[in-house]
């Protein structure tokens, strides 16, 4: 279980996140939605401490991250993350991208790392792309390599930061298909997305953000049928 308590984040005096209190239960899927600049990505990045909150607590089960900075590596290892811009290691082939952390973090041998990496890349439909460099892959393929790279570490939590925002509609579908396959397989999944229909389809709960705050945390059905805040109503009205 992940819990954020009174999280606040400032960049050079500008508040980008405040009064954030939320709980992510194990095995559930959460979608964080809201307009651009609402603080969605920052919230997600606070979860694995890619951004260090200015104030507040981030709990992973019974470990509070601020007071356990020496255990950051361990916690991050259990949180897979997928980025908008893929962030593949440009000088490594797809296979090596996935093997890298297995060798450096999990300290696996070459053979074992290769076996796992090959399996994970096959799972996302890229068995034929093992030896390609990132620049030889399409956007959708790159993002699937990134997903395989995160999954290879066997995380308990997957964080998706606008995974399809840089992709065309066709590639978006191939990535969403892979993500759907992960839904309710035991992992906690937290997705920041602009794909409202996708959120509606996969998420158990919706976290609606506006102007650096969380306005609503409700189950998906309630959110789409009767949102509480006026701002969320407007947001949904603009979607259709």
């Amino acid at each position, binding site marked *: 279980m992940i819990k954020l308590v009174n999280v606040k984040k400032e960049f050079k005096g500008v508040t980008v996140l405040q009064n954030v209190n939320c709980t992510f239960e194990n095995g559930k899927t959460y979608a964080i939605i809201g307009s651009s600049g609402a603080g969605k990505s920052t919230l997600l990045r606070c979860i*694995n401490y*890619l951004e260090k909150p200015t104030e507040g607590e981030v709990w992973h089960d019974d470990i509070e991250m601020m007071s356990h900075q020496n255990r950051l*590596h*361990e916690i*991050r*290892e259990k*949180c*897979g*993350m997928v*980025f908008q*811009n893929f*962030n*593949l*290691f*440009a*000088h490594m082939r797809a296979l090596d991208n996935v093997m*890298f*952390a297995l060798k*450096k*973090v999990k300290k696996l041998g070459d053979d074992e790392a290769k076996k796992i990496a090959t399996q994970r890349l096959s799972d996302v439909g890229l068995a034929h792309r093992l030896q390609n*460099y990132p*620049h*030889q892959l399409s956007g959708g393929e790159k993002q699937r390599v*990134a997903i395989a*790279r*995160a999954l290879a*570490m066997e995380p308990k939590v997957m*964080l998706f930061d606008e995974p399809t925002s840089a992709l065309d509609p066709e590639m978006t579908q191939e990535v969403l298909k892979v993500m759907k396959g992960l839904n309710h397989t035991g992992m906690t999944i937290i997705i920041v997305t602009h794909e409202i229909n996708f959120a509606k389809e996969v998420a158990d709960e919706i976290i609606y953000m506006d102007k650096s705050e969380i306005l609503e945390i409700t189950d998906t059905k309630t959110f789409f049928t009767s949102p509480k805040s006026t701002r969320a109503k407007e947001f949904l009205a603009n979607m259709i």
Partner: protein
Amino acid sequence: MNINYGPILPFMEYLLKGTYVTLQIAAMAAIGGSTLGLFFGLSSRRRDPIGFLVRAVVDFFRGTPLVFQLMFFHLGLPQITGWVPTIMTSAGIVFSLNSACYLSEILRAGIESIDKGQSEAAIALGVKKMDITFSIIIPQAIRNVLPAIMNEFITLVKETSVVSMIGAADLMRRQSIISGTTFRYFEPLLVVGAVYYILNKVLSSLGKVIERKLRYD
């Protein structure tokens, strides 16, 4: 035309042996300079005493001429410290520090050219900082700035000629000794020029080979 290699032929072996001295200094500086340059490049952005010291050293070596640095270290400092280094020691230290300062700036440019998203992805996977630096950032940074690094090495080989100012018997020094003895300048200078040119030709070909090896497309 007044060209006659006769008078300088007996000195040819002596002249060409200067190549060895030139190469020795260049090699010391290349190895010392790369190692130190990597350290400087990685630590010049630090906001602690180490970062401050590195920035000060880089600033000094880029702000003064190489001839001055060499003479100051070899002739000036011994007056204060009492330690008189050999010519080769002075040359090795000054050239290493000098090229380290230029290489560090080149490497820093290379490091900054790598999108920080890759580091973030590695951090998110739980990879340690050391592994990120040496397995992800440095290999890509070096590849991006390899032409500039080779340029620095070529400059280095040519710049070693100023060691004649502190009395090292390198190519240039030997040429001037021979010219002083035989009163012939054109012929020995031509030989010296050819040697420098060939050395750098070899070096730049080597650079092209490495560049091709490091390509990943």
